């Protein structure tokens, strides 16, 4: 019985507490707060791979405790504060919903440095960081237009927030740069995470005649359906090739690790500053999974576009671009500014859907 109690206590400690191992005074603590579990197969798993990269890169110099499954809301503040009190030098809070909690704790602990993912509130010791996912989606659109026989792709979307709308538009713009008549059907699943519903949405789109699928939801279920029905699809957040070895054309892979290593290095050098960072393909914060299951010329095109985006020669949102109803948005050669992109609430021409408001 005593053994059982000890075992239970140990389990409880690992489940609820820090899992970073023994503490050593000379180690710098770089801490992470996750909204999901490390094995969710999507967003948080990608975050945790980033943490592991920090661990590997700095070895003995740094330790990386983390908290899993922290709910967004009042609990988040408590969790982040607990991290701050435990001696963390730098804390990454990795979900949009942690924004206000991070701001509050950052004000209470001015000596600790904070970084909040995908948010828009910052402070003297609170930086924000985000990834230009739309750059990858533009490439997906180009590949889709080349690979689709029917000229129609299906897009499984989550919630009508600017981030998702921006992705849909980037995909359509990429597709139209190859085939001006390309159509995009959008289905809103109204969830980030529900394998069943995502699979249903995929089936509905395929039954309605799309022959390429892309998704902005978190599980591999749509990829699995695409594989079963024999059409092509794109992976999201993680490389989903295991779910569709003959199906996945490429995937937008979140590779936060490069960013986390960069910031940890800045912390150790004493050059860390509070910044609002929006990195893209060129910074390695997102990566394209290997281009597979496509002819060489399509692959060459995708690689060329990727290179052009990295060099800054190509910005996916460059005019002339019309809004969905045909009214002009950007003049020839004009580029969308970051503010407009981050607040995007309209479709570009060619998207076959009515944007939910």
């Amino acid at each position: 019985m005593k053994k059982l109690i000890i075992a239970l206590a140990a389990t409880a400690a690992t489940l609820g507490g820090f899992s970073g191992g023994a503490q050593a005074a000379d180690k710098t603590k770089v801490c992470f707060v996750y909204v999901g579990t490390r094995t969710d197969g999507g967003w948080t798993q990608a975050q945790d791979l980033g943490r592991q990269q920090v661990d590997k890169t700095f070895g003995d110099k740094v330790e990386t405790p983390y908290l899993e499954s922290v709910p967004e809301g009042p609990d988040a503040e408590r969790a982040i504060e607990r991290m701050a009190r435990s001696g963390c030098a730098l804390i990454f809070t990795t979900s949009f919903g942690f924004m206000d909690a991070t701001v509050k704790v950052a004000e209470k602990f001015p000596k600790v440095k904070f970084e909040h993912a995908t948010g828009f509130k910052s402070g003297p010791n609170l930086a924000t960081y985000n990834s230009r996912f739309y750059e990858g989606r533009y490439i997906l659109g180009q590949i889709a237009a080349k690979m689709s026989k029917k000229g129609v792709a299906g897009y499984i979307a989550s919630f009508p927030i600017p981030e998702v709308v921006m992705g849909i538009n980037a995909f359509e713009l990429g597709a139209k740069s190859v085939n001006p008549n390309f159509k995009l059907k959008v289905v809103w699943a109204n969830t980030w995470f529900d394998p069943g519903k995502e699979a249903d949405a995929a089936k509905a789109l395929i039954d309605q005649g799309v022959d390429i699928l892309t998704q902005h939801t978190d599980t591999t279920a749509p990829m699995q359906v695409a594989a079963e029905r024999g059409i092509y699809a794109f992976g999201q957040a993680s490389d989903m090739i295991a779910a569709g070895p003959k199906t996945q054309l490429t995937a937008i892979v979140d590779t936060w690790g490069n960013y986390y290593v960069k910031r940890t290095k800045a912390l150790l050098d004493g050059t860390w500053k509070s910044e609002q960072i929006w990195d893209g393909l060129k910074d390695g914060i997102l990566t394209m999974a290997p281009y597979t299951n496509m002819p060489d010329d399509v692959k060459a095109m995708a690689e060329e576009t990727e290179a052009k985006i990295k060099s800054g020669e190509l910005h996916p949102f460059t005019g002339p671009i019309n809004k969905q109803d045909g009214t002009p948005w950007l003049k020839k050669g004009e580029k969308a500014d970051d503010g407009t992109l981050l607040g995007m609430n309209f479709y570009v021409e060619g998207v076959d859907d009515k944007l939910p408001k």
Partner: protein
Amino acid sequence: MLEAILLTIITASTPLVIAAAGELVTERAGVLNLGVEGMMIMGAVCAFGAAHVTGYPVVGLVAGILGGALFSLLFGFLTLTLVANQVATGLALTLLGLGLSGQIGESFVGIPGVKLQPIVFPLLSDIPFVGPLLFRQDLTFYLSIALIIGVHWFLFKSRTGLKIRAIGDSHGSAHALGINVIRTRYLAVMFGGACAGLAGAQLSLVYTPQWVENMSAGRGWIALALVVFASWRPARVLAGGYIFGAVGILQLHAQAFGIGVPSQFLSMLPYAVTIVVLIIISHNRRTTLINTPACLGKPFVPDR
């Protein structure tokens, strides 16, 4: 096209019908188990694991049933033997199930699953339209229909069913008549757990053959609601499950077709339509009251 839509609807509705059929028996015995979601997810992880290890999806199916039933035993022990509060224990069971399944399934994430293949009836499956819908389905679909018919027969035509309903309506009287209330309730709880486990197995072996944490995504709660809105009648559970599944799939098609109705409204439709239809079906207050287990959720301690 219609055939494809109907096939999708069947896959989406089956887990709801199975889990609700089980919970219906549990509640008819007077026990309110809010842990359906937890038992379902435990069934899903056990099924995936067993199918993955052995390579046989049917073994997974059995493991799912056993997993759900064993997990419900924990609920039974706490609420029937220790007389803990049923609502609180049920909620705890859901939370525990979600966490525990995540721990068990940690190494299953990202592994391609084993799909339970459909049973093809020779000749019958070649009938146009009807064949693929009714005679080329996987085992879980046939089990779901058999469950509804079986539960109806069992509750309303068999002697044991009568005892279960008697316990649900008045456990004191049933006890006075010499019926073993606690033992019968244990069995009813385990039947509910087994069904929830089977529903979970359908998720991880048929619906989306893979394991991801929290993959039941609230379906256990839908099943629970179905039982209440179907006023504890098996046929209505079947109807409710299919209405919910059908509207859920049709709204996705409506979106893909581009009818221009806001998607938030369409997403709400399955819930609204199912509730409205079931309320209309069960409009007769008297029969609804008769069908409501009077002792639902009330603790019972045999006094001698």
